[in-house]
């Protein structure tokens, strides 16, 4: 056996070991590229900062709000190649007081678009596996105050907007506004273009604006101000159709 024949296998082994290590380093680099993603919502009405019980003019009707809560689920972040990061197990309960959410780790260099559902996925909404009375208090899908569950129709109010409207034109909101959208058919997708590069740090933030007034586009609040979905489905459908327009990039 010549020296050459002895050295060749050693070289091959060394090269293989190098290649193996290099692959490992690539993986480490990918891991290093991960960042924590946070979602921040800004509640507005006609572009102004939301304030509970303040009077806003919505389509010519003075209106105030005291509840504006909704569930967000099935969050998907896409890059320009339409590759998606999915946060499928998250159910977030947005309220004017609760607007910042840790979504989790993500490895993406460009946030092209965010898609999400307003509401709760059918398998959790139908209460057949775990119902809202069985969930720990820390779970957004547990019973809430104000209630986000329905009792007469097992499931959640996906969107709950309560307040007062001025139906008689005297300028003072005094009649009930009660918009409760739910049931599986009303699970609604929203999509917002982000066009934002990931920042090279541990925490990236996606900021969205939620403008409540946009929920009521082409709705006459003097006559259309109450729906619990099933009782006034026509109004519920209008609200559902308006939901995607309420979200924009901030």
């Amino acid at each position: 056996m010549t020296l050459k024949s002895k050295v060749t296998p050693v070289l091959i082994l060394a090269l293989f070991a190098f290649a193996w290590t290099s692959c490992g380093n690539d993986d480490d680099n990918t891991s290093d590229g991960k960042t924590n993603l946070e979602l921040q919502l800004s509640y507005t009405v006609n572009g102004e900062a939301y304030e509970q019980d303040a009077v806003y003019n919505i389509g010519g009707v003075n209106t105030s709000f005291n509840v504006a809560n909704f569930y967000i689920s099935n969050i998907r972040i896409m890059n320009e190649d339409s590759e998606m990061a999915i946060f499928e197990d998250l159910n977030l309960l947005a309220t004017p007081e609760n607007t910042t959410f840790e979504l989790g780790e993500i490895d993406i260099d460009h946030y092209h678009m965010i898609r999400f559902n307003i509401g709760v996925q059918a398998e959790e909404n139908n209460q057949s596996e775990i119902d809202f009375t069985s969930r720990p208090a820390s779970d957004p899908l547990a019973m809430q105050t104000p209630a986000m569950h329905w009792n007469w129709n097992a499931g959640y109010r996906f969107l709950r907007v309560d307040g007062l409207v001025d139906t008689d034109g005297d300028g003072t909101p005094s009649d009930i506004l009660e918009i409760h959208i739910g049931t599986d058919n009303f699970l609604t997708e929203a999509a917002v273009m982000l066009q934002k590069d990931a920042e090279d740090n541990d925490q990236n933030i996606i900021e969205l604006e939620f403008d409540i007034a946009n929920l009521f586009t082409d709705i006459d609040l003097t006559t259309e101000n109450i729906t619990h979905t099933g009782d006034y489905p026509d109004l519920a459908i209008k609200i559902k159709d308006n939901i995607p327009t309420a979200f924009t990039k901030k």
Partner: protein
Amino acid sequence: MDRDICGIPIRLQLMKQYPQILIFLFLLAMVCKKEMNTQAQEVGLKIPKGFPLPNIPDNNPLTPSKIALGKRLFYDTILSIDSTIACGSCHKQEFAFADNKSISPGIEGKLGFRNVPSLANVAFVAHFNKDGGVPTLDFQALVPIEDDFEMGISIQDLAKRLNADSSYQSAFEYNFGDVASPFTITRALAAFQRTMISGNSKYDKVMRGEETFSTQEKRGYDLFTSEKANCSNCHSGFNFTNGEFMNNGLYLDYSKDTGRQRVTIDSADIGKFRVPSLRNVELTAPYMHDGSLASLEDVITHYKSGGQPHPNKSSTLRPIALNENETADLLIFLKTLTDTTFINNSDFR
């Protein structure tokens, strides 16, 4: 997954490939049945002949003390915001745990929009409320507790109330190892209601060979099950209901209460309501989802007419030509479904 046995999902295809599995499953089902029977026996539940075993969820086993807690809650007005209304205020034993009003008043005399259903045999019901909006008895009690027209209290506030009472506190701790909560309150109430089994009417005794129908009752029974009257097409099985949601042509306009459509948002479900059991029907007047028919005679008159031509009306409904004698026979048979043992059972008081 095609079936589940004792909570274990089973694929039928697998059973075809491995027939030994069938034997194992048969033995497993026998063990489960024995366990359920044992549980039922331990709490004194007597399942009438011809009845299936009730579905008792794993997370809410029946125990005598839990049933007692459920009974205490059932009759306690603490369950309403102003402490005036208990479950038993509207679900009265003398009426087979229904009421004799079209619409029973809730707190402050408020009137909802539906007639109180009987609680007899709720252990065997698959969908709750007349529109089927609630999938299980185990949290159905949320509906009356939280409804503004019934008890009007959030169940979280009710839990606080109950936890402020030391005797309730210890009862919940004993039964659930936990405080009163939305989960434990609803489960205790469900446990009590599961014991409300009615299966000792004259009809049942005749079926068991213990008694015989009178000639008129037998004529009524034959009519009830005949194609002519077609009653048993919907009021079928041991509990006299097919459990389906049907439009019986009561109205042309259901805008006051659209029924199952409230839940499904499907216009094809307008005017559909869960077919009720006819057990103890003699005691549960007035009838229909809104209590609009005062007597059984009125109900029979409605079905004889074939009902209003609503587009969703069940195709099984058509005018029925019953003469006076036949109508009387049918009425007499319906009265054999009255279970006096049930309405006098001191376990429920």
